């Protein structure tokens, strides 16, 4: 029997209402489509068009459903940012330690770096460990929050707190990466182009990319918070 298009039109409306999260929208669309066709198949009346209309009506307003999904999308995004922060900090740590191991293998223990070098090393150390502590605190905070049934003001406050922790961790990490850049420059000034230079530069590039990835990830979360704001108010 030919489809009337009632279900297609409905899932299209629902998918559009979930536009704030494209992957969730695709997944929910497939899931709901399957549900609606299962409902139509189970309808005993034999009137296909009426069965489709009834299935759609019983399913509910797409905008209300999208509003209920907004909290899921926000929670998923926030938890992903928390994990990204941990992974990025770990990657920066490995790149930093790898570079220092390379220096040790190539040149032996480093000599005194002077006043500027000592100060930058100190900033680097403090900034990095601050990023570690705040990053772990942020991840634990967001991971242990209960996901409510709707985007409540309390949940928004929790997300804002997490956002502040993320910003603090990212700021500290960027300070650490900049310090690493300064230290690497001090070490490589006057060195001719060789493998001795490529490895430290590659490790620095990894650090910069990691910090950039974290910034992009946090920016994505702010966009998600803004785009779900309107949808979540519908419920």
């Amino acid at each position: 029997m030919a489809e009337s298009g009632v279900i297609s039109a409905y899932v299209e409306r629902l998918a559009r209402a979930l536009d704030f999260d494209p992957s969730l929208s695709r997944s929910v669309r497939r899931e709901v489509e399957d549900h609606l066709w299962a409902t139509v198949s189970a309808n005993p009346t034999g009137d296909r068009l009426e069965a489709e209309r009834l299935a759609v009506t019983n399913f509910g307003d797409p905008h209300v459903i999208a509003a209920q999904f907004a909290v899921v999308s926000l929670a998923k995004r926030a938890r992903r940012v928390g994990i990204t922060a941990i992974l990025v900090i770990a990657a920066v740590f490995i790149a930093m330690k790898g570079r220092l191991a390379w220096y040790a293998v190539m040149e032996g223990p480093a000599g005194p770096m002077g006043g500027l070098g000592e100060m930058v090393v100190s900033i680097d150390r403090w900034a990095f460990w601050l990023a570690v502590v705040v990053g772990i605190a942020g991840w634990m905070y967001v991971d242990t929050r209960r996901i409510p049934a709707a985007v409540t003001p309390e949940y928004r406050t929790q997300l804002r707190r997490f956002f502040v922790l993320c910003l603090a961790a990212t700021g500290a990490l960027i300070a650490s990466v900049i310090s690493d850049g300064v230290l690497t420059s001090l070490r490589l000034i006057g060195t001719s182009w060789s493998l001795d230079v490529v490895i430290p530069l590659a490790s620095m590039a990894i650090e910069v990319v990691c910090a950039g990835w974290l910034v992009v990830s946090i920016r994505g979360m702010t966009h998600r918070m803004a785009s779900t704001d309107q949808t979540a108010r519908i419920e």
Partner: protein
Amino acid sequence: MEGEMLKGHLDMIVLAALSAGPAHGYAIIEEIKRRSAGAFDLPEGTIYPVLHRLEQAGLLAGRWVTADSGRRRRVYSLTKRGKRELSKRRAVWEQFSDAIGSLFKGSRPWQNPA
């Protein structure tokens, strides 16, 4: 049953419906209707955000399978954490239900002191 009352217990209802074994959204709704003898007749669309939320919380695991009809459908099952959570909620609910039951048993029709 009052919609608001039902809303407050949706998580527990869905977890309980899945205690029989893995099921997709439509089957979960049918199971809820069957076990509650039609008392919990929910707007069907409200179940899916709950399923996704419980999955995000680690209480459910979802996976895509291909149905006999050839359509792809998402099947949910309780995780170990979900089973523990259900046991916990059941214990709290039974305690609450017993307490309310005792209150009703001991109550008498209201009499005007005047």
